C-alpha cells in the first residue's frame, strides 16, 4: 500500500530499542513509505547506534535541548509529535506498547482527533487496515477495521514480530525544538529497582514463580536456577501483590512482556492475564501441583507435583550433567 506510515521510536542508552525495530519492520510490511521519529533530550557526539541502517525512507531526530527530567512524563514528546502528525499526511502511526508508547500514543491520538488502538498483535492491509488485539485479559481476540477516512495510531505489543534484520538507507534529519510549556507534572526523581544481570525483556531463559511457591523464600531457589541458566527471574502478579518479590519482576498484562526460548513457570496457574506477558515464549515448561491448572494447556513440557523437590532435582541434574 502507498499509505504514509510514521513510526514513533525509542532510543535507550543511545541504541534504538528492539521493540522499535519490530515496529519499523511491521510498518515496512504494510507500506513502502515509512518515516521514523525519535524524540530525545540531546544527541550524543557519537550519534545513535543503528539509526543510519533503519529500514525506512526517512528518520527525524528531535532534540529538546533540555535534560530528561524536564521532559517529565512525555509532555514535550506529545507536543512535537503532534506537530509532526499535523504537518504531514500520515494515515497510520505505529509505536510500541512500552511505558512510553502507552502514554504518548493516546495523548497524540486524542490531541489530534485520531483513532487509537492499543496493544495490538497483528496488522494486515489487504484493502483496509485490519488490526488484531487481545481483549478480556487475553481470553479472546478482537479484529478491528480502520475506516478509509480515519487516521489511526496503533500500539504494538512488544514481541509480536520476529525481527528479520532488514536494513535501509534512510535520509536523516536532526531538529532542535524548545520546550514551551512549564505548568505541568515534573519528574523529580527516578528510582531503578531492577537487579543487575540479564533484563527480563531480553532474556533467552526466564524462570518465573507464582502463588504456588508459598512464600518469598521460594524465589531464592528460582533465582539460583535463573543464574545457572544465565536467565532472568520473573513472577506472577499474585506473587508480587503478596509482597514476595519486587513488582519489577512482574510478567503479564500489567507487567513485562517476555519472549524467551525457554520460560519455566513454577507454581503459576496460568491465568490469561499472566499468559498475556509470556505466551510469546518459544517453549513453556510448567511445574505445578494442580494438574488442571491452565498453564498445562499452554506449556510444551509439564511436571505435576510439589515444586520444591522438582526444582532441586532439576538444578542438581543440570549441575551434575555439567550442562552449563
Amino acid at each position, binding site marked *: 500500500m502507498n499509505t504514509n506510515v510514521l513510526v514513533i521510536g525509542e532510543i535507550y542508552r543511545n541504541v534504538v530499542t528492539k521493540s522499535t525495530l519490530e515496529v519499523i519492520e511491521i510498518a515496512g510490511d504494510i507500506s513502502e513509505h515509512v518515516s521514523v521519529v525519535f524524540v530525545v533530550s540531546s544527541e550524543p557526539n557519537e550519534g545513535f547506534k543503528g539509526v543510519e541502517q533503519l529500514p525506512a525512507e526517512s528518520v527525524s531526530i528531535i532534540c529538546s535541548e533540555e535534560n530528561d527530567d524536564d521532559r*517529565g512524563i512525555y509532555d514535550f514528546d506529545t507536543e512535537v509529535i503532534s506537530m509532526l502528525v499535523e504537518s504531514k499526511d500520515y494515515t497510520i502511526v505505529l509505536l510500541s506498547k512500552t511505558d512510553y508508547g502507552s*502514554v504518548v500514543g493516546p*495523548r497524540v491520538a486524542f490531541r489530534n482527533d485520531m483513532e487509537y488502538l492499543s496493544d495490538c498483535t497483528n496488522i494486515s492491509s489487504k484493502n483496509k487496515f485490519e488490526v488484531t488485539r487481545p*481483549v478480556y485479559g487475553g481470553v479472546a481476540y478482537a479484529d478491528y*477495521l480502520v475506516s478509509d477516512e480515519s487516521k489511526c495510531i496503533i500500539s504494538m505489543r512488544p514481541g509480536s514480530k520476529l525481527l528479520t534484520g532488514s536494513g535501509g538507507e534512510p535520509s536523516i534529519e536532526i531538529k532542535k525544538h524548545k520546550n514551551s510549556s512549564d505548568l505541568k*507534572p515534573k519528574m523529580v526523581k527516578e528510582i531503578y*529497582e531492577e537487579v543487575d544481570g540479564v533484563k527480563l525483556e531480553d532474556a533467552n531463559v526466564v524462570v518465573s514463580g507464582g502463588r504456588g511457591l508459598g512464600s518469598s523464600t521460594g524465589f531464592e531457589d528460582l533465582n539460583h536456577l535463573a543464574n545457572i541458566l544465565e536467565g532472568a527471574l520473573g513472577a506472577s502478579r499474585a506473587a508480587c501483590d503478596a509482597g514476595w518479590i519486587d513488582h519489577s519482576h512482574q510478567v503479564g498484562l500489567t507487567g513485562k512482556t517476555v519472549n524467551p526460548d525457554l520460560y519455566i513457570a513454577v507454581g503459576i496457574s496460568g491465568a490469561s492475564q499472566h499468559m498475556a506477558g509470556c505466551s510469546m515464549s518459544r517453549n513453556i515448561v510448567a511445574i505445578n501441583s494442580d494438574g488442571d491448572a491452565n498453564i498445562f494447556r499452554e506449556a510444551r*513440557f509439564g*511436571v505435576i507435583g510439589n515444586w520444591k523437590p522438582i526444582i532441586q532435582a532439576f538444578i542438581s541434574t*543440570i549441575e551434575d550433567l555439567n550442562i552449563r
Partner: protein
Amino acid sequence: MPIEIAILAKQVPDPDIPTSRIRVNESGTDLEIPEDAPPIVNGFDLNATEAALKIRDDGLDVNITVIMVGNDFVNDVVKKPISMGADNLILVEDENLTSLSPRVTVNILSKILTKTGPFDLVLAGRQASDFDNAHVPIGVAETMGIPIITYARKIEIIKEHLKVERVTLSGYQIIESPMPVVVTVSNEVGEPRYPNLRGIMAATKKKPELFSLNDLNFQDSLADGVCLKRMFIRENHNETEIIKGSDDADAGRKLAIRLKEEGLL
C-alpha cells in the same frame, strides 16, 4: 472547602470466570458471559477508590465522587465504592451505551466531569479488565486540557500539590504536579479495603445521581472510525508432554534430561 476527587469507574464482567465458560455471542462482536456470574466494578477502579480513601486517611478533607458510564448497571455492584467509603455516585446510563467505544466514553466522561465538577483530582484504574484499552483516562485528560500521570502506586496531596509515585517497568518515578490532574492507579497502590458496616449502611441508603445522554445534551455520533469486526476465542492446539517420575525429584531429573535432549538447556 474539601478537595474534590472524581473516580472514573466501569462495570465489567468478572475476569475470574473460567475461560471454559466463555463464548463469543451471536453477533460475533462481544463475549457471552454466563448469567449466574454477576458483573463487578473493574478491579483497578477499586484500587483508584482505595487511593482516594488513603488521601482521606492522611487527614485531608476530601469529597469522593464515583462516575460510571454504561448500561444495565447492577445496583449492588455499582455501589461497591460507596460501601468502601466514597461519598457520591453518578451514573450515566443509556440503552445506547451497551457497547461503548473508548472515544465515545472519553467524550461522555469529559461532559459529565465538566457538568458536575470542577474536580481537583480525577482518578481512574490503569485499565479495564474487559477491553484492556488503558487509554480512556488519557483521552479525558487531553480532551479537558489537563495533565495526565499514569500507573500511580502512591498519591499524596501536599499543599494543593500532588506527589505521585509512578510505576515504571524498571522501578518507579516521583512526579510532582499542580492540580487539576488525571491520575491512573495501578494495583501496587494496595488491596481495596473491605467495606465496614457503616459503609454498607451508607451504600444501602445512597441514591445515585442519574444522567441520560439527553441530560448531557450529548449529540456526538456513537459510531467510530474503527469498528470491531469480530471477536474470537484463542484456540490452543498445544500438546503438552507431561514428564513423570517415580517421585517429584525423579520427575525433576527427567525434566532436565528431556530439555537437554531438545537443546533447550
